[in-house]
């Protein structure tokens, strides 16, 4: 059976919703058939937007994998690769099994959806073949009509939503790298992807209580990035810092093992973000929608560029050297900051928002270290701090947003994410344990748990001779 998400049960409603939600309107030519876009053509455009946007966001999983593999020390690189391909897989399975329903069915202004079963659109029903009976033909017509009213194929929407939850999970894996137990982490991902994120998502995107209140978060600065960021921060505190990171009140840098890999990861994420933000327009079947997608592409790129330049300049001024890892984080912070509202800001405002995102990273990365919170890849500044900032400045460009409601959303998501993930990390801590032994940590997780070194022929720690 096809799930007809109650929050958008027809093209008409969708179109109306988009007017109020993202200020994107139906084609000005919808009534004017030859000049306009037919519903089936629009359906195809919308579905393709989800598929193309979806594969771009899927690619972000590789981006996080490379970024994190580049930023950890070489003795933990294979582990980081394993965690990333594992979390992407687990997140997809959990989102299929429970998350999608929990996020989108029957939320109705409430606090979560249901566990209602759902299925993708049946090709067999839509297209019963040559020898179809009259009943089958009628059923096909009805099903096609229903689908057309929805405006996109269910599986395309599922695919696009699924890759978002993987993003949230990736954020966590970077922060708690180099010491968390692999299976504890995977269990965390199971719960995050199956329950925590979908419930959070339902509040806004599932048409829950925050949506009813008018909270605005276009592509998820708060829903995806801050929720992931809170889960990461909570994990970093509960699991504790890597041994040797903070010694006698001094920060002992544990430097990134592979800078070009981290750079590659950042470029992948940047590319994927065009899908993340662009396809969050949720429609491409009209002049207005595709123009909106275009504006989002431009603003997204400008914000990221602003983040890079701001962090480069600040690093040069403050430290006299342009630490490339900060520039990479700056790009991502710019992207996270614009994600809450990539459509309405002017290009100049987009650059500014991105630049402030970049500045936030430069100033808060050392701050976390002062608090002895060990965030290996800087995910908390990038995703949480820049995410909150981006969410709070939506009212600057979007007149449907208010600071009060935005703050309500930020606080509500913060409380929810902190409480649920703290509970989960603590349960894990007192059952199977969240942290590897001191010996394993020193030896490196690759030899301890993966059995394979990332670079067995290079380097001091892992050099093999003969």
């Amino acid at each position, binding site marked *: 059976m096809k799930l007809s998400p109650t929050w958008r049960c027809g093209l008409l409603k969708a179109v109306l919703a988009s007017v109020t939600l993202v200020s994107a309107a139906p084609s000005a030519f919808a009534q004017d058939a030859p000049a306009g876009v037919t519903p089936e053509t629009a359906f195809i455009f919308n579905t393709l937007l989800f598929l193309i946007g979806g594969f771009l966001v899927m690619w972000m999983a590789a981006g996080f994998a490379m970024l994190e593999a580049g930023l950890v020390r070489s003795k933990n690189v294979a582990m980081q690769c394993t965690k990333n391909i594992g979390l992407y897989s687990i997140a997809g399975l959990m989102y299929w099994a429970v998350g999608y329903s929990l996020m989108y069915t029957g939320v109705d202004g409430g606090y979560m959806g249901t566990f209602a079963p759902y299925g993708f659109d049946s090709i067999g029903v839509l297209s019963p073949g040559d020898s179809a009976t009259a009943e089958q033909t009628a059923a096909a017509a009805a099903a096609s009509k229903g689908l057309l009213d929805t405006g996109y194929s269910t599986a395309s929407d599922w695919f696009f939503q699924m890759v978002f939850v993987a993003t949230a999970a990736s954020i966590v894996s970077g922060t708690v790298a180099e010491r968390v137990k692999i299976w504890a982490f995977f269990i965390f991902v199971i719960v995050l992807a199956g329950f925590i994120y979908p419930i959070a998502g339902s509040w806004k995107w599932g048409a829950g209580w925050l949506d009813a209140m008018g909270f605005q978060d276009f592509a998820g600065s708060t829903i995806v990035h801050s929720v992931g960021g809170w889960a990461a921060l909570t994990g970093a505190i509960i699991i504790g810092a890597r041994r040797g990171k903070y010694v006698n009140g001094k920060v002992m840098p544990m430097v990134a093992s592979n800078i070009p890999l981290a750079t590659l990861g950042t470029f992948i994420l940047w590319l994927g973000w065009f899908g993340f933000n662009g396809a969050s327009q949720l429609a491409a079947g009209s002049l207005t929608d595709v123009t909106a997608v275009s504006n989002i592409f431009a603003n997204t790129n400008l914000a990221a560029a602003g983040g890079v330049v701001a962090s480069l300049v600040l690093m040069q001024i403050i430290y006299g050297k342009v630490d490339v890892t900060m520039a990479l984080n700056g790009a991502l912070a710019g992207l996270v900051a614009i994600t809450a509202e990539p459509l309405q800001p002017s290009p100049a405002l987009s650059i500014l928002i991105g630049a402030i995102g970049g500045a936030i990273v430069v100033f808060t990365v050392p701050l976390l270290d002062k608090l002895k919170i060990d965030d290996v890849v800087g995910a908390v500044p990038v995703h949480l701090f820049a995410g909150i900032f981006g969410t709070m400045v939506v009212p600057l460009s979007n007149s449907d947003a208010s600071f009060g409601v935005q703050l309500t959303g930020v606080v509500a998501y913060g409380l929810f994410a902190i409480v649920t993930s703290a509970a989960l990390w603590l349960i894990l801590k007192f059952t199977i344990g969240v942290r590897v032994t001191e010996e394993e940590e020193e030896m490196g997780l690759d*030899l301890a748990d993966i*059995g*394979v070194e990332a670079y067995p022929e290079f380097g*001091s720690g892992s*050099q*093999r001779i003969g």
Partner: protein
Amino acid sequence: MKMVMAVIKPPKLDDVRAALAELGVTGMTISAVQGHGRQKGQTEIYRGAEYDINFVPKVKVEAVVEDDRVSAVVDAITQAANTGKIGDGKIFVMAVEQSVRIRTGETDAAAL
């Protein structure tokens, strides 16, 4: 002069360096080596096939010091590098007949 050559566990390098610094010994040369001894390497499995990693990463510290400082240096290293666990390493002492500082051409004690 003597060459004091110590093979230690990599995480202990910093402690050893600090301990030598306290003695005023700052000249040393370090290299990444692999050790074989009582401490066994890991047995790992790669794609279903077992294999032994016969060697364990170690750090070799070579410091040439004047004869009268040898025992202090040896003691300092012994203490600083000790974890009490197998594989802590060894110290070997060898005679050095001549030393030269390349920059100045100074020799022997003055060269250290």
